[in-house]
């Protein structure tokens, strides 16, 4: 059996390859009993010979007449004694060659052909080949006999394993239309056996180009693919397999086809064509399915064979079909046997699939396959590799929790695996590339804890130091690099370690210490990687100790020493400008900032320089210069995110100058560039500015009466004029944005009903995918507040699916959390609020997310967690307002649930704080009053309860609409309370005046 797979991708792969079966076309199967249809010793010929017998004259007694010998030949053939017949035919040939006349009608050519065929049937191949050659040399030979003779000779040679000699004979036999296909087939098979793969391939190609698409075609195609695989013609093999896959019904040897696919996949994988390998592996069926299907096909072949074998007098075609069916069945059975002997077939297939998926970026698919392999093939030799792959897949897809869990499983299964540290190193790198530095540290820690030091120890220690530094854990970073420098004084990363130690000191504020280290670094590594940065840092330390002169000098020197393309040049100009500004030389500083602006800067540096220039221009009241700067920036970098800043500042500056129309015109020009695009979420900043400018009350002119506010309709028309121009006029996103500006104007004018109406209009007129994230959040909140959670949900979901990275993403998570809470689903609500903080960063909704988490914990009965969060809300001064009232009330509720007199007193204090300090939130005040009265009753303090209720009932206007009003009346009537004595109000807890926090 040939073994084709010799890939050395990994040890495991190789091991498995060696165990795989391999060739589909085993040793050449040539016909052994007859050549083929027309070559078979035909009854027709026998009949002709018999007919001849009657016509031949009798010979002398001593010599048996040839006619009689021919009759005996026929008898021997009928008696299935072809060897005897062959001997007799040889005698007749000798007599004919000696000059004796043959019976009339029988030519020497026909005699020789019959003899050749009979010798071939008797497996006397040398003689058959000899007779074939004799026929070919006859001057009078006809084309049909010549073709038959060539086939007999070719096959006889091949069956003597003289394949190379047989090849040209079959090639010559191709001339015959009758034998062309068979000559091609046997010629290809002979070339294959002779090791002449190119000849074999070329011959099969010629055969397949013209032969009909039948089962023979499929056999030949399989053989050709096998040759292509062995010859390394992977592209041709791939095309061939694709063709066979498209004609699966014709393929009887499915097992062989699968094996070939596996071999082709391996060959492609070895050649680095993972996409091709994947395509090959994906077509392979699992072992059980394959065995079951192959058995069905084998049974079908056996049935067909039995039908043919049952024919009493098979025709030459039948006999040939029997032979071919037999051969096909043998091959299919052999392939099936190979598959059955391989218990690891599925695991091998899974591993190969997973590996190729992974190599071409399909880490998710690969993880599924590795998990399946690990779960269902516990004895597989690929397990260790599969674990390694699995960890890499989870790391690659950013599922770091899964990385931790799979590392844990890997370590337990293979405690000493050499792949363990590699997997963790790769996981750490992946975590770092996703800025999950804590995750990176975890993986590095796991590597240190679980595996002995190795070749990755050095890079892992430096990676750890970098991660700590990036996490602002400078002291630990320094400690790590100092230890590294001690352990590896000549280490590969010693320069990085030394520089990082200096930077850690600098970041910790020990600039003197840092400066010393930088100077030593510059001395030890004059050509080092970090020299330009080190010199910049030295200048920066001078600036930090307000030595602007030294700083400026160092900057000038730096700029003189490094070429214009040095990437830090812009940063140095900026620092130089800062130093000049520090020295009071603002004009030169402005020039230096402009120098910086002309060079590549990071967005952070660019923003800094623009803001500094803006600040200096405004301080010098050079408003036109500031506006010109922003306008130039917007013109030169029209797609830069800071263009929005430009528009904002232009608008602010012009408004400050009282040039409202100019401000609006400028801001609307820039707004219109992006207003059609819902993914540009920063446009809303401009829209809010536009609304603020428009909603501003008209200026009062000296001596004139206060002008009437401009009607909203007029302002709204102006909004449309500013935003909906040209191609934005009919754009749904732009139209929704115009409505949003109008709603903001309504909001600024305290017309909440109109605001909600306009937001409602956006909700009903525009699909969520037409809206930017900022508007989605506002509309969602409005719909939720109007009691339409199902409508709100669509907008919130759109934020987190279409704009997950938006600064407004927390609107989506918090909104969905609120809806989950309304549905009584505490777990989901908690997940959503957590995501608002952990995933979206809660830039706008931290208060709501924190309060939401507290409510969710309370709903889930986790009172300690809820209390902690309610206390956090109540204690946050910047959140003071309704959230505080709610938090205090709930703290009271939590205390009451404990029920001890001490807790009841605490609850009472919370309730009192609500109704005394947060009167602006009557819903909470009403609740707090009634609970306070009830608590007094529980405490047995009926007079205080009566007083509390009576005090509550004095706020008829504020509280009458709440259900607690009626509850208070009922309690007063039924609790048997004494008459109220109206003592002075209890002293209010010391709190700042309540101010509703803006969300």
């Amino acid at each position, binding site marked *: 059996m040939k073994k084709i797979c010799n890939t050395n991708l990994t040890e495991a792969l190789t091991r498995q390859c060696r165990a795989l079966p391999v060739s589909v076309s085993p040793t050449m199967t040539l016909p052994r009993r007859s050549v083929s249809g027309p070559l078979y010793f035909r009854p027709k010929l026998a009949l002709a010979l018999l007919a001849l017998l009657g016509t031949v004259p009798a010979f002398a007694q001593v010599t048996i007449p040839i006619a009689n010998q021919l009759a005996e030949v026929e008898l021997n053939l009928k008696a299935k004694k072809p060897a005897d017949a062959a001997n007799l035919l040889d005698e007749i040939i000798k007599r004919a060659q000696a000059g004796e006349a043959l019976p009339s009608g029988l030519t020497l050519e026909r005699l020789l052909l019959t003899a050749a065929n009979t010798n071939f049937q008797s497996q006397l191949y040398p003689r058959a080949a000899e007779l074939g050659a004799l026929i070919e040399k006859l001057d009078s030979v006809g084309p049909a006999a010549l073709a038959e003779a060539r086939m007999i000779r070719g096959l006889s040679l091949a069956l003597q394993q003289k394949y190379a000699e047989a090849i040209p004979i079959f090639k010559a036999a191709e001339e015959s239309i009758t034998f062309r296909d068979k000559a091609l087939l046997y010629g290809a098979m002979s070339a294959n056996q002779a090791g002449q793969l190119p000849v074999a391939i070329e011959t099969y190609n010629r055969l397949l180009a013209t032969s009909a698409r039948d089962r023979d075609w499929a056999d030949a195609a399989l053989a050709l693919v096998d040759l292509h695989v062995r010859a390394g013609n992977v592209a041709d093999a791939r095309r061939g397999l694709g063709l066979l896959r498209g004609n699966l019904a014709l393929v009887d040897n499915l097992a062989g086809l699968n094996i070939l696919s596996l071999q082709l996949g391996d060959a492609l994988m070895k050649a680095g064509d993972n996409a091709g390998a994947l395509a090959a*592996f994906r077509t392979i069926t699992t072992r059980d*399915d394959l065995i079951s299907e192959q058995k069905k096909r084998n049974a079908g072949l056996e049935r067909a064979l039995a039908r043919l074998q049952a024919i009493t007098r098979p025709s030459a075609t039948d006999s040939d079909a029997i032979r071919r069916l037999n051969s096909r069945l043998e091959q299919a059975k052999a392939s099936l046997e190979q598959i059955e002997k391989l218990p690891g077939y599925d695991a091998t297939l899974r591993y190969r*699939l997973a590996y190729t998926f992974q190599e071409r970026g399909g880490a*998710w698919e690969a993880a599924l*396959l590795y998990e399946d392999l690990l779960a269902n093939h516990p004895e597989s030799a690929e397990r260790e590799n599969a674990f390694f792959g699995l960890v890499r897949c989870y790391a690659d*897809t950013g599922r770091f929790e899964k990385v931790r869990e799979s590392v844990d499983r890997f370590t337990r299964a293979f405690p000493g695996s050499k792949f363990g540290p590699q997997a963790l190193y790769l996981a750490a790198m992946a975590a770092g590339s996703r800025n999950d530095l804590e995750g990176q540290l975890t993986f590095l820690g796991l590597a240190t804890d679980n595996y002995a030091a190795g070749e990755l120890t050095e890079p892992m220690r430096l990676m750890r130091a970098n991660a700590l530094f990036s996490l602002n854990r400078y002291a630990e970073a320094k400690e790590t690099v100092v230890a590294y420098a001690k352990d590896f004084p000549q280490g590969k990363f010693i320069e990085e370690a030394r520089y990082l130690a200096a930077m850690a000191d600098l970041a910790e504020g020990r600039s003197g210490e840092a400066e010393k280290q930088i100077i030593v670094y510059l001395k030890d590594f004059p050509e080092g990687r970090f020299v330009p940065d080190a010199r910049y840092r030295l200048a920066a330390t001078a600036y930090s100790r307000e030595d602007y002169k030294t700083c400026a000098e160092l900057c000038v020197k730096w700029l003189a020493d490094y070429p214009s393309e040095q990437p830090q040049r812009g940063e140095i100009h900026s620092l130089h400008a800062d130093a000049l500004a520090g020295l009071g030389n603002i004009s030169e500083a402005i020039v230096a900032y402009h120098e910086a602006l002309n060079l590549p800067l990071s967005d952070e540096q660019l923003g800094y320089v623009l803001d500094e220039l803006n600040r200096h221009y405004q301080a010098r009241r050079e408003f036109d210069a500031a506006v010109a700067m922003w306008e130039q920036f917007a013109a030169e970098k029209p797609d830069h995110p800071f263009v929005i800043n430009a528009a904002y500042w232009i608008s602010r500056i012009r408004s400050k100058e009282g040039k409202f129309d100019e401000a609006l015109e400028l801001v609307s020009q820039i707004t219109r560039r992006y207003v059609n695009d819902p993914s540009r979420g920063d446009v809303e900043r401009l829209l809010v500015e536009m609304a603020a400018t428009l909603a501003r009350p008209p200026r009062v002119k000296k001596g004139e009466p206060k002008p009437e506010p401009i009607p909203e309709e007029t302002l709204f028309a102006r909004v449309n004029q500013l935003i909906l121009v040209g191609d934005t006029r009919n754009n749904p996103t732009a139209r929704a944005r115009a409505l949003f500006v109008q709603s903001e104007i309504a909001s600024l004018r305290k017309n909440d009903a109109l605001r909600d109406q306009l937001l409602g209009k956006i909700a009903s007129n525009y699909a969520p995918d037409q809206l930017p994230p900022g508007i989605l959040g506002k509309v969602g909140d409005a719909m939720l507040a109007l009691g339409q959670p199902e409508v709100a949900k669509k907008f919130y979901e759109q934020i987190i699916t279409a704009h*997950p990275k938006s600064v407004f993403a927390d609107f989506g998570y918090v909104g969905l959390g609120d809806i989950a809470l309304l549905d009584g689903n505490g777990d989901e609500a908690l997940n959503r609020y957590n995501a608002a903080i952990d995933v979206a960063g809660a830039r706008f909704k931290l208060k709501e997310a924190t309060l939401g988490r507290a409510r969710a914990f309370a709903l889930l009965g986790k009172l300690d967690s809820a209390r902690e969060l309610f206390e956090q809300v109540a204690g946050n001064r910047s959140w003071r307002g309704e959230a505080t009232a709610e938090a205090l009330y709930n703290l009271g509720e939590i205390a009451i649930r404990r029920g001890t007199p001490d807790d009841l007193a605490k609850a009472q204090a919370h309730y009192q704080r609500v109704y005394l300090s947060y009167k602006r939130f009557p819903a909470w005040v009403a609740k707090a009053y009634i609970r306070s009265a009830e608590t007094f009753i529980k405490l047995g303090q009926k007079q205080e309860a009566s007083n509390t209720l009576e005090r509550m009932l004095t706020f008829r206007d504020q509280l009458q609409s709440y259900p607690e009003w009626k509850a208070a009346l009922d309690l007063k009537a039924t609790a048997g309370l004494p008459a109220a004595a109206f003592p002075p109000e209890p002293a209010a807890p010391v709190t700042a005046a309540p101010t509703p926090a803006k969300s």
Partner: protein
Amino acid sequence: MSSPRHRLFLSLVIGQCALAVLPAAFAQRYILKDNTALAASEVTLGSGALVQQVAIPGGGSFERRYPLADVARLEFPEPEALDEAEKLVAAGSGADALKLIEPIYRQFAPFSKVVGSHWPRAAQLRLQALLLGTDNSAITSSARELMQSGLGPDVTGTAKLALAQLDARAGKEALANVMLEQIVREATPAVQARAWLLRGDLAAARTAHVEALECYLRIPAFFGTIDELMPAALLGAARAYQGYGDSSRAERSALDLIDNYPATLQAAQAKKEFNL
């Protein structure tokens, strides 16, 4: 000029071709348990039996009845309409597909379990076509009919899947999941793959992107030979990647779909959704 021998060979080939064509085009036969072959054109379908009118020499005729239970095998060519209907179902045209399927479904209904009957394929296609519409009661009864047909795990799996799909549509996701869990454990690979696709859709509707991805991607990972489900799986995966925040994988999945299955509805949708 070909020799007489060649002429003989050619005529033989032509004869064989003619014989090969004839059965496919015309042979519509009922084969009884005693190997009697009845040409479909000579019998009609009566109540519980095939009815043959036998002419009496000299005039008149009588009816010979062959009980349906005696039919062992059908020799009817595969109706082309079913292939056409399959394409229509894939293209989402349920109503048009049903028009082609119904006559075949009814014709073979009395022989639903007989070897060579085209009823199982017609009935399964019919169910898939119905699922493209909103007639839930027709879907339910079609699925139940298949479940009770005893035609093997593939057919039963298809029916269970349809019922799960109905549950999902009705918002009974938990119920649907119970059924799907059973299918992915027990059904044939083709049905399992479709069950994973439906699970992916359910997870996607909940915006559970990781779960959706793990369901959709099972199709290319474990059922790579079932090409017809690949477009839906790739589109689902592309959307789930997008939801998960991995836009580069989302785009790659969409491109895979557009490159490899360009003529599908899903490819057109992907082009639109991902601006490709």
